[in-house]
């Protein structure tokens, strides 16, 4: 079965409230979304809570997902990224310095066994394109994606002129778009 047809089948089973489909969705996407949450929050406990929240949303809102408009992975990663950014923007995050978890489990032994490309369409292509960017271009993209900063906030954060930040951002996004569209054309 192709990736697309297996994904559509998974969506259909989720819509039919098949608990095994939920397990399949967890096994397929949990490592990627957990890693995104960990990168955004830098807090293992928060990342675990957000994974739970994400799958509750997937389960309860699957009927609103339209497979003709986006891949399931795009929908899930979009929800995940927004959940993570909402968390770090929230008042709770401002207090987290006071109430940090007492213990952090060692995660060095939990490097992923999965290949991200299996669940993130064009993930490897974008990663390769990202690695060709210069440090400033990478930094502005990371600040927007993982910290949810606007270009004005990035300029303030980096103490660089807004126009310069916009230029770095524009060229970085242009490179990613060009690489992906080039990859699609091949």
């Amino acid at each position, binding site marked *: 079965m192709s990736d697309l047809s297996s994904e559509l089948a998974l969506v259909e089973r989720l819509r039919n409230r098949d608990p095994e489909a939920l397990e399949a969705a967890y096994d397929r996407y949990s490592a990627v979304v957990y890693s995104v949450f960990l990168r955004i929050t830098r807090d293992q406990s928060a990342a675990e809570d957000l994974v739970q929240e994400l799958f509750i949303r997937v389960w309860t809102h699957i009927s609103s997902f339209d497979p003709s408009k986006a891949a399931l992975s795009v929908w899930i990663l979009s929800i995940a990224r927004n959940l993570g950014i*909402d968390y770090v923007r929230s008042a709770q995050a401002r207090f987290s310095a006071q109430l940090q978890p007492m213990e952090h489990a060692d995660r060095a032994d939990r490097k992923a066994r999965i290949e991200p490309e299996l669940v993130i369409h064009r993930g490897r292509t974008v990663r390769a394109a990202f690695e060709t960017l210069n440090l400033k271009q990478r930094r502005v993209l990371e600040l927007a994606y993982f910290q949810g900063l606007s270009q004005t906030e990035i300029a303030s954060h980096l103490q660089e002129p807004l126009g310069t930040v916009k230029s770095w951002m524009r060229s970085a996004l242009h490179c990613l778009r060009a690489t992906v569209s080039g990859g699609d054309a091949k």
Partner: protein
Amino acid sequence: MTHSEMDELYELFVLRTLEREEASEIEQHLRDGCVHCEARVREADALMAAFAGTVEIVEPPGHLRERVLSSIRPSPAPKRENHKAVLYALAGLCAASLAVCVWLGTMTSNLNSRLSDVAQERNALEAALKSLSQSGTRTIQFGKANQPEGKVFVNPSGGLVFVAARLPRLGPDRTFQLWLVPPAGAPKSAGLFRSDEKGSSVTVSNVLVDPATTKAVAVSVEPSSGSSAPTTTPIIVAGLE
């Protein structure tokens, strides 16, 4: 904005990091039904989802799978009675009488237990009303869209009443724990509570809340027996300042 100007902004639009004016203009343009831009938004969505590929992938802890799945999957239907066992049970009049007696005893016990629960709920509500009606009670509202929300009523001499909705579902081995957060130093526990099936809770704590030494009331998820200090990041922080 022209299409070519908007073309440069769709990734930031889907990341919700555009300035308000630019985002509003694009939203309006999309509401007007621009097919070109709808397609570009979808492309930007896909590109930004693929950006997750730049993250080092880490396996989540093993316990998280069961925690997530058990919080979502529907409860299994109650098992059907074993008909054969029921027939055996009904075979003798003495056994049946005994079963009825046991059943009546259990029912009585359950009713007593329920009465006790109702009495406890009544006492808690009375305590809440008493606390709320005292002079000097402050009300602090907390919460945002799609997150736990509610109010904390704090009285320096009467304790606090914590009312919350949209609380996350917890496994049987976890509970919510209230904390009083000082400006510096370790938070102090103000009690444990659980939510109902709808994620709501009304909790009364008799812990005295000194406004001078309490910066916030916080809630974290802890093991069912509670913790001496928070072991997770708080899901709610209501500032008292």
